[in-house]
């Protein structure tokens, strides 16, 4: 693969020795940040696994300027940095542009940070916001979030005899971001490094706001083996739970269409957080899950045809 060879020639933004769990796939995209682009970047992280594990004092895993912000304001902080960089380059006639990247987990993006994110996107800052979606507040001990899928067991929505995990379906943040009419919105997954690197490159190099939602399986939270993260993400894409698509100035493109759509149970039942769904009494939940996915997939394909 020539693409990986090109990336291998460049220095990484993220050093070894960080303290994310063994098998956590988040560094797959943080290592790429400087490898995909020639721009100088500044990164800001919302509170979350990545922020906590990459900056345990006095160590920092970041080889690029990096700012730790609170849970809710990664987008607000980075829009400030972007505005500063813009004014400075205007005053000094500084030709080299700085690009800003904000990174948040699903808790810090879907729930707590959505107000700051929405405002930053609406103001049109030259900013790429990356959300790594692992489907719960994994850092604080697997509490449910807006991104937790239907039926998943978390510590705040435990599966028992009466209730089978989370009762609500997940929020579709990518669609919310499309509704902001920004230049670029995309969904990517850590199992496909080529697609992922192209989307990160596009998001960083674009002059304007961009949002990237990356599916990032969590070893303790999804209750999977440490070597399963990439395979689990790949299954999520094969079953169309996590379609890979991009919306470029309003035009939808589906980047990957599985030849044969696999039933969602193939993905669900490999994870411990959905283990209770094997019980026949919850079989209807799997059907409900499947119909939600089918509906979403058909809608997406129809959107692409329109464009």
């Amino acid at each position, binding site marked *: 693969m020539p693409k*990986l*060879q090109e990336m291998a020639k460049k220095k*990484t933004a993220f050093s070894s020795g960080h303290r994310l769990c*063994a*098998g*956590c*796939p988040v560094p797959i995209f943080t290592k790429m940040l400087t490898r995909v682009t020639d721009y100088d970047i500044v990164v800001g992280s919302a509170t979350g696994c990545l922020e906590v594990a990459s900056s345990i004092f006095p*160590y*920092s895993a970041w080889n690029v300027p990096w700012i730790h912000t609170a849970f809710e304001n990664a987008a607000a902080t980075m829009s400030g940095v972007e505005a500063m960089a813009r004014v400075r380059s205007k005053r000094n006639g500084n030709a080299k542009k700085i690009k800003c990247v904000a990174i948040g987990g699903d808790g810090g993006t879907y729930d707590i940070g959505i107000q700051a994110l929405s405002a930053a996107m609406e103001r049109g800052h030259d900013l790429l916001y990356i959300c790594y979606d692992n489907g719960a507040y994994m850092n604080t001990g697997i509490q449910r979030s807006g991104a937790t899928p239907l039926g998943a067991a978390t510590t705040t929505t435990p599966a028992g005899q009466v209730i089978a995990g989370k009762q609500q379906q997940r929020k579709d943040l990518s669609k919310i971001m499309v509704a902001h009419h920004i230049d670029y919105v995309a969904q990517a997954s850590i199992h496909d490094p080529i697609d992922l690197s192209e989307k990160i490159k596009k998001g960083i190099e674009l002059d304007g706001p961009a949002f990237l939602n990356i599916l990032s399986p969590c070893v303790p939270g999804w209750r999977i083996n440490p070597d399963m993260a990439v395979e689990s993400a790949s299954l999520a894409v094969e079953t169309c739970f996590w379609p890979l698509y991009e919306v470029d100035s309003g035009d939808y493109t589906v980047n990957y269409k599985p030849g044969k759509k696999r039933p969602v149970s193939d993905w669900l039942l490999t994870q411990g957080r959905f283990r209770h769904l094997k019980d026949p009494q919850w079989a209807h939940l799997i059907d409900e899950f499947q119909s939600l996915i089918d509906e979403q997939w058909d809608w997406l394909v129809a959107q692409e045809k329109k464009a």
Partner: protein
Amino acid sequence: MSEKYGLKNWQELALGGVITDGGNAADYETGTWRTWRPLWRQESCINCLRCWVFCPEGAFVLKDGKTPAGKDRKEIKQIDYYYCRGCGLCVRECPVNKKGKKKAIEFVREET
């Protein structure tokens, strides 16, 4: 803290807890977490770099090499066990391993 980081007291810390030495997490050894050890075999490796791109720890060390046609390329040199946590992602994602018989990365129990 004072001896380890060469500071006399806490007043010598950078204002706001700023870490001025970027990427210094590389000094931190995470290899002690390992209970299983991946063993990389050069003779079976097809140099696709999938292990390198997926390794969460960045433990695959690269070196300059040449393709059979004589072009410059990066090749896997070794696994850095100072960082490798033994998650096994490389073992599972290796396309040579997936095909069956020969293995490019083998997973063995760590000797205690």
